[in-house]
């Protein structure tokens, strides 16, 4: 416990020192705020523009969460089909790799062209960018089941549906969460990237990506820094929410969570 307190204290000291160094750099060199604002200027921008920043944050959160949830549903469904039929997996699995390698920056304008500027098209972008890790990890978990466990189920005359839902799916749960963890991070990045192109449906309103472009054009560099900070916080929150759900689902039984239970 005491050691933990020291670690936390050290982190705080290092963080404060970095902020101090940054502020000193700006003050001593008389840098104008539009080139590099100090932490105090960023904090001020954050306070002044908080309502619009929060609005942008919520829009991006909605898009990223929507795309992520859709990719989990679609990805698990696809992985279940792949696990059930080998030929289907061989036929379609290469396309999931294609999905992963396609540059999202290049197709975002296309999607906006088709779905129209706004929340829907950005959600589609986050969906596409989140999908491949879910499919790849879940498929791997579904098909890598101990052969003797399959034999056990066959001895009980289990139906294919029983083998899928009571054996393969729980077996794939740790892999699914690995996929979700990867996708949670990139869904936020996908959302912001999409917004850089999608702009806003109403003047002055849009997600973090839109606000970043806006702040950049207006030379509001302090606000720009505040937005970057908000985007980081959003990514972190997604990650921690997924980690928490993973812990809820696995801590009872999975080996990776052994450290959390007292023997």
């Amino acid at each position, binding site marked *: 416990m005491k050691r933990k307190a020291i670690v936390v204290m050290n982190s705080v000291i290092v963080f404060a020192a970095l902020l101090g160094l940054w502020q000193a750099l700006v003050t001593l060199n008389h840098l104008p705020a539009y080139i590099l604002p100090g932490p105090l200027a960023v904090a001020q921008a954050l306070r002044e523009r908080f309502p619009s920043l929060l609005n942008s944050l919520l829009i991006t959160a909605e898009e990223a969460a929507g795309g992520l949830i859709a990719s989990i549903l679609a990805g698990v469904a696809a992985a279940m089909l792949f696990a059930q039929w080998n030929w289907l997996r061989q036929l379609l699995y290469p396309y999931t790799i294609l999905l992963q390698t396609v540059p999202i920056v290049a197709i975002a304008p296309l999607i906006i062209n088709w779905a129209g500027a706004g929340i829907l098209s950005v959600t589609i972008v986050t969906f596409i960018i989140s999908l491949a890790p879910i499919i790849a990890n879940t498929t791997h978990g579904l098909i890598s089941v101990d052969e003797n466990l399959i034999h056990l189920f066959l001895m*009980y005359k289990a139906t294919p549906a029983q083998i899928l839902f009571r054996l393969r799916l*729980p077996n794939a749960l740790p892999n699914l969460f690995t996929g979700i963890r990867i996708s949670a991070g990139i869904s936020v990045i996908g959302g912001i990237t999409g917004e850089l192109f999608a702009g806003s449906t109403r003047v002055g309103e849009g997600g973090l990506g839109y606000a970043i472009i806006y702040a950049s054009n207006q030379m509001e560099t302090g606000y720009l820094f505040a937005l970057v900070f908000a985007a980081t916080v959003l990514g972190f929150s997604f990650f921690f929410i997924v980690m928490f759900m993973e812990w809820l689902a696995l801590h*009872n039984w999975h080996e990776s969570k052994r450290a959390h239970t007292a023997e």
Partner: protein
Amino acid sequence: MVNQDSRPVPEIELMGVSKRYRNAAVAIEDISLTVQRGEFVTFLGPSGCGKSTLLKLVSGLSPVSGGAVRVNGMTPENARQLVSFIFQDATLLPWRTVEENVGLGMELEHAARPARKERVAKMLDLVSLSHVAKRYPRQLSGGMKMRVSIARALASRPRILLMDEPFAALDEMTRDRLNEELLRLYSEQKWTVLFVTHSVAEAVFLSTRVVILAAHPGRVAHEIAVDLPWPRTAATRESKAFEEQVTQASRLLRGVYQA
């Protein structure tokens, strides 16, 4: 199946059974063996003699390449509800508690919940594991996991047990104790058992008959009737008769390894 003569239908019958895997050497060639109800038959032999394959054929998990297998007069697939398979590792589902693992078979067969709970409790009591019913497999020792696996196998009221080196991964003391427990249950429940092991002492201690297999291709080399008195306990292992039977089986097995 109509019983043509007065003798009972053998519990397990292998008739000229052979097994070859795709692009591989012959695993088993022309094995014929009749096992009567209530026998405890153990297979010993070098790796590659097809001991485990034999159990897969009797369970119907793997089809024969030649000959035929009959279980209580039926094909192995049709006889599955009579049979429980116990694997080398405990093959428990890690996301299920001990009691949920034991109840798996009944759950898959849509047994009513109260009946299932009662049966699971009884099985856990049988293997003295009632106190860990709510635990997860990773919280158990290797020996406890194996006892859960046995409880699960017995929950479906099998007439036949197929056991593929079930205690191979355990330390000797645990293995001896589980052997004694297994025999206690065997004398109560009178299953027919096919058991695969590498340990001569284990084979002699458990069995009514030991079958020694030779490898490449797998075939029956020797059969030994074990006539140690029942009930067999820890004291049996210290008897002269036990020692003699182990020596005899070891000698025959050594001949097979050297061949």
